[in-house]
């Protein structure tokens, strides 16, 4: 958890740096695959995504590495906006990403909430804050998506939570 446990020669833990870089790459690839998949889901709500890359961030939060989770999430949002997005999509995903990571960090301190609950809350809040940002950009008409976004945020969040739990149990790469 702390870089002080390394041998002291390097200020940055190389193993961790590599892991972060790899995780950002995983996030971007998953995000790209999702954007292809999301075209078929657009009929439900425009541009809906499962948000699988959040499973990566979530796993990191559950290992206790809050700083790493923030770093990866911000890097992922900036890079995916540069690669596949537009200024508007950048602000939408930034508002959602920051809100959901914040609530996930806070909830991860509670012992009575598991990774699935954190994920659901994060997914729902992601959608809510994205909608708030969309209201500022396009006008109040988009609030009609609120019920479906709440519901889908919960469902997708639960899915990501289960995925994150599976990764967390199975994977040893987070034990650096």
């Amino acid at each position, binding site marked *: 958890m702390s870089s002080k446990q390394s041998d002291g020669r390097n200020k940055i833990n190389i193993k961790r740096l590599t892991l972060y870089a790899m995780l950002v790459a995983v996030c971007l690839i998953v995000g790209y695959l999702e954007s292809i998949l999301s075209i078929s889901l657009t009929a439900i709500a*425009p541009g809906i995504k499962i948000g699988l890359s959040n499973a990566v961030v979530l796993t990191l939060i559950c290992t206790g590495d809050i700083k790493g989770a923030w770093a990866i999430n911000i890097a992922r949002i900036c890079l995916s906006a540069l690669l596949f997005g537009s200024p508007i999509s950048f602000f939408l995903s930034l508002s959602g990403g920051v809100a959901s990571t914040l609530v996930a960090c806070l*909830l991860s301190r509670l012992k009575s909430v598991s990774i699935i609950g954190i994920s659901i809350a994060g997914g729902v809040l992601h959608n809510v804050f994205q909608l708030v940002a969309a209201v500022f950009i396009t006008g109040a008409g988009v609030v009609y998506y609120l019920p479906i976004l709440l519901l889908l945020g919960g469902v997708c969040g639960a899915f990501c939570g289960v995925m994150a739990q599976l990764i967390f149990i199975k994977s040893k790469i987070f034990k650096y």
Partner: protein
Amino acid sequence: MKKGDFIIIATVALAAILSVVLLFSLSKQGSRVIIKQNNEVVYDESIDKNVNFNTGTNVVVVKDGTVFVSEANCKNQVCVASGKISKKGESIICLPNKVMVEIK
């Protein structure tokens, strides 16, 4: 799954139901169709007037009190997939072409 998870799920479910009730009790049948392109109004007529309006990038169809986008030259086709709208305050947005269809 722990106790806190169920509290979160219950809260989300409650919020979803509440938002449906609120939005549907507040929504009214719309009266006017407004189409904006690059933030300029290019069309403003009653919703009862049936028309196929071409903005040059998107084809907006007004038919029997409902409005939908039938064609768009952008690659994501989000506005076409948005379906029909008829209630006050609803909108269809095409971000790539900066076209916005709104009901007032």
